[in-house]
């Protein structure tokens, strides 16, 4: 054990029913080996721990044989039957250590041997982040506004939606290419990893978070016979209590060990807890009575001042310009001096039950907040309560200062925002820059330049304004107009206003016009071509588009082909692309005739890109074959 190597006599089994091969199991921190007793036996094992995914073992006391079951990442299980539980215990510890060790070190990327590496959620998140960044920054000038946008979005919660969206898209792509073996996991991520820069490569190792189970909820156990109640406190529970109830923490720092012993402190605490949880009324009364006598006990029973203080601090952070987002998660309304004045207690007396609901939800919230804050304490410090308390104190202190800093920053932010708003407001005095009056000699110039282009497009042959033939004098014209007005006045409107034939004709002309301009693409900036398509087709097109982009990126980045690996990759990509090509063709044929034109137009650029890739591939192949003919020792 000291040397880090353990060796035990075991039987190696491939399944529980298997009688097993007797032999020896050697365990080091890196690998495990099994050597059968009989040299003839084929069952040998020599593998690294990093391929072991988990281990199980039989519990002592059950009437089963002591067995250890190791499962590899491929899902194969190796079962070792030990001679005694002591042996099992020793090996178990060793395996546990080995596994935890390999778990921490980043897995070497050896994709050829680990075909289905499942990215952890954390990894995926960072990968997704990469993707997002990637999308935002690439595409040169066309997307200049994107980083700005992202910057703002990051401030709001919306970033979540966006990341959801990218995650979704990414998942789709991942599914399509990696699952189907067109790209390997490594290849798929490689294009994105590059853009992340140095940061991601030396990503700090993952910290273990707090458990989300509420430990302090663990009930006191009673032995049933006497009235004695036993609370079990582990350092972990203590840490949670400290984190969630700052008042207890403070009290502990003050009292222990100067004024009372650790044991006294905790029994007092537990007593308070017990009294508080006790349902009967006389218990509550008893609690009050006791609290009156014992000031330390009272400490635990009264509402937590520190919490209230913290909540107040949070409220202070709430922007007076009503930033609801900051307020959303917190329920401050239970604080007596927040919000509006309550009217008397007559109207609604909050029953004990409601109080209970409220405190329960408060506790849940508080616990959630602590869990989310994470643990600033290392596992090693989780030994005795004293260190826990101190460590927590330290980290809290750090946090407080950083909190204050954050507050300051937030304040600064707010101020700058307010000042910005002021700027926008045109309440400011007008700047007294000297104004030179615009002297336009003849606005006709403008008109002519517009008219020239407007008339050109309207397929009218006559250009410019043709002066009206003045065959009538002004007076006569006015008179004739007045005549027609009085004509209507006397005879009424033409009846019928239009004949049915004309009506039908006009409507059909208009309808024809409508249907002909229906597919006039891109003329109206407000209407995107895609929007006119039905949703399913639109989505399918977009999906193909993104997939194709992905494939093409991989495809072109593989050139020039220098290794066998790249060669196979390219041929794989080529196959996938030709598949998409045929899918596009199908899509084109499947759409309704009135949409086909548009869809064809949309598909064309994709097909052109595909074609270019194919041609390049064919040319390359020819060159290669020519070359390999020359020098028969090609690298393929």
């Amino acid at each position, binding site marked *: 054990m000291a040397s880090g190597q353990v060796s035990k006599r075991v039987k190696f089994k491939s399944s529980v029913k298997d009688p097993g091969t007797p032999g020896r199991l050697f365990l080091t921190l890196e690998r495990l080996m099994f050597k059968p007793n009989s040299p003839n036996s084929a069952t040998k094992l020599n593998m690294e721990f990093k391929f072991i995914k988990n281990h199980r073992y039989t519990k002592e006391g059950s009437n089963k044989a002591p067995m250890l079951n190791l499962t590899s990442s491929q899902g194969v299980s190796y079962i070792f039957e030990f001679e005694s539980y002591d042996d099992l215990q020793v090996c178990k510890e060793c395996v546990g250590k080995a596994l935890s060790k390999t778990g921490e070190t980043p897995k070497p990327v050896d994709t050829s041997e680990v075909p289905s590496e499942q990215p952890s959620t954390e990894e995926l998140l960072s990968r997704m982040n990469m993707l997002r960044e990637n999308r935002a920054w690439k595409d040169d000038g066309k997307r200049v506004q994107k980083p700005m946008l992202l910057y703002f979005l990051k401030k709001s919660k919306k970033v979540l939606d966006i990341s959801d969206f990218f995650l979704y898209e990414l998942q789709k792509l991942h599914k399509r290419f990696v699952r189907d073996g067109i790209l390997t996991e490594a290849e798929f991520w490689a294009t994105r990893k590059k853009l992340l820069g140095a940061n991601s490569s030396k990503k700090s190792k993952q910290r273990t978070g707090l458990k989300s189970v509420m430990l302090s909820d663990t009930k006191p156990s009673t032995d049933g016979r006497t009235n004695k109640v036993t609370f079990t406190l582990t350092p972990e529970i203590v840490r949670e209590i400290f984190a969630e109830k700052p008042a207890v923490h403070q009290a502990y720092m003050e009292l222990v060990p100067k004024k009372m012993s650790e044991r006294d402190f905790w029994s007092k605490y537990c007593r308070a807890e017990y009294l508080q949880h006790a349902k009967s009324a006389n218990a509550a009364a008893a609690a009050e009575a006791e609290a009156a006598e014992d000031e330390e006990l009272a400490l635990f029973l009264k509402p937590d001042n520190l919490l209230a203080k913290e909540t107040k601090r949070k409220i202070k952070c709430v922007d007076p310009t009503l930033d609801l987002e900051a307020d959303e998660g917190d329920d401050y309304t239970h604080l007596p001096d927040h919000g509006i004045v309550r*009217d008397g207690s007559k109207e609604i007396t909050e029953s004990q039950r409601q109080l209970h*609901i409220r405190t*329960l939800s408060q506790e849940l919230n508080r616990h959630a907040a602590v869990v989310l804050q994470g643990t600033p304490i290392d596992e090693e410090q989780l030994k005795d309560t004293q260190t826990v308390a101190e460590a927590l104190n330290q980290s809290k202190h750090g946090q407080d200062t950083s909190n204050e800093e954050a507050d300051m920053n937030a304040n600064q932010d707010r101020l700058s925002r307010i000042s910005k708003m002021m700027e926008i407001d045109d309440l400011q005095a007008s700047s007294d820059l000297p104004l030179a009056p615009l002297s336009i000699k003849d606005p006709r110039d403008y008109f002519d330049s517009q008219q020239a282009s407007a008339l050109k497009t309207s397929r009218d042959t006559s250009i410019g304004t043709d002066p009206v033939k003045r065959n009538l004098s002004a007076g006569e014209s006015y008179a004739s107009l007045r005549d027609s007005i009085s004509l209507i006045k006397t005879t009424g409107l033409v*009846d019928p206003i239009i004949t049915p034939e004309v009506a039908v004709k006009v409507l059909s002309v208009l309808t024809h016009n*409508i249907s002909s301009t229906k597919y006039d693409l891109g003329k109206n900036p407000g209407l995107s071509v895609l929007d006119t398509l039905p949703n399913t087709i639109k989505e399918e097109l977009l999906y193909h588009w993104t997939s194709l982009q992905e494939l093409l990126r991989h495809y072109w980045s593989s050139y020039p082909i220098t290794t066998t690996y790249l060669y196979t990759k390219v041929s794989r990509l080529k196959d996938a692309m030709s598949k998409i090509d045929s899918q596009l063709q199908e899509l084109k044929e499947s759409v309704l005739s009135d949409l086909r034109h548009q869809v064809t137009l949309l598909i064309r650029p994709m097909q052109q890109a595909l074609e270019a890739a194919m041609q390049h591939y064919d040319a390359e192949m020819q060159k290669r074959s020519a070359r390999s003919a020359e020098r028969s020792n090609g690298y393929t």
Partner: protein
Amino acid sequence: MPQVRIIAKNFMDMVASLPAMKLDRLYQNAFICEAILRSLPPLAKKYVVQMLFFDGPISGKLLEEWVLADGVTKHKVAIDRLIQLRIFTEAVDKKRESSYKLNQTFQVNLQKHLTNGGVLPREPMASTVRLPSLEELDTYAHEQWEVGSSSLCFHYPSHLHCSGQAEKPTNLSSSMMRIFQRGLLTQRDKDAPRLTEGGFQFLLMDTNAQLWYIIRDYISNSEERGTDPADLISFLLELSFHVTGEAYNMNTLTEIQRNAIKELADLGLVKLQQGRKESWFIPTKLATNLSVSLTDSSSRKQFASSLMILVGMFFMVIVIMHATGHVVVETNFRIYAYSSSKLHCEILRLFSKIEYQLPNLIVGAITKESLYTAFDNGITADQIISFLQQNAHPRVAERLPSVPENVTDQIRLWEADLNRVEMTSSHLYDEFPSRDTFEAACDFAREWNSLLWEDSKKMRLVVKAEIHMNMREFLRGQK
């Protein structure tokens, strides 16, 4: 959450449900054609107008050509409604393409209306006597309304502390009374009538919806009174084209109409006057706006005023004192209502705490407790908010939002607060002897639809308390 959909159908659904014969007869009247046209969805209106001078059918495909992809459902709705109202007749040809033709009478009537204008069935009487001015007509309605409002408190649940004011309404016909008792009020034995949950919600409904409720019930009740609904509908529609404030001779009315108009006078739609020789009726604003209310368009100011009169007549609490709103809500949750009415005070009391009542001003505050009372009565946060918005004082109504955001959000939050944590009494089972027993127990609980939580690793499950006994039986059986 209580069902709020008291009003599901609108008036035109009722018209559409009339038998074909009666519908066709309705269309003989040009004004009814006009009113019906106005009630159609926008797209249907467009179809009718653009086909006004067609003599043949038009193919559905041609019409659809004009519709954008996301308007297809609207197109279908429009066509359906037109066919339902028998304005369109559908013909399907061999290629299964449908074409539509306008109802002949409907078409001709509208054409005539366009070229010649409409002709009312009766002319206003030559003004031999002094007719009440428009203001006087409004005051008339206001007076009626005050009578109603004072008797309103009568219907309030006792815990709202309004007593002593109970005057029996005297001038209300029993048929009108019945409309209300049916849905909105409950009367147990000798107790004073109380508002039902529906009644509470009615109070806070938007004004249009309230009118719907009343008109619909009035018409659907007509058969009980021996009147043909079609006649009533036609008369109501016709009435809407009369000129406010002009007098019309009663002799021009049919027997049925004369009966109806008396009831309508009760509603405040018309004012009846008696001369020496003949009697006449004067439509109020309410009557002339009737056809507006038949469309689905959102409520508007001018309409709200007339509605107020109508509803006031029913001494059902409504909404507005003047044509405009009266409520100002401040960011500190304080409410100021410029009103002297006891009625308004009571409405506000539904969800706020009334602090002072000055001669022309009611001051209150929205508090958590007062809102909880409202929520208990089945009023939703949305209803309260929309009430406040609709009745905003003109000064604040100009602003957006008319009710401060922090108040609306807080109201919603308080409502959501009630639903934050749901307590379900339950039992936890653990330490199962074997996985099979555990699985079986889970399945059992699932069958009873009361499995709340399970942890298969540690073999624990939480089950609703109701089936604890059954569960125990079951587990015992398992052993």
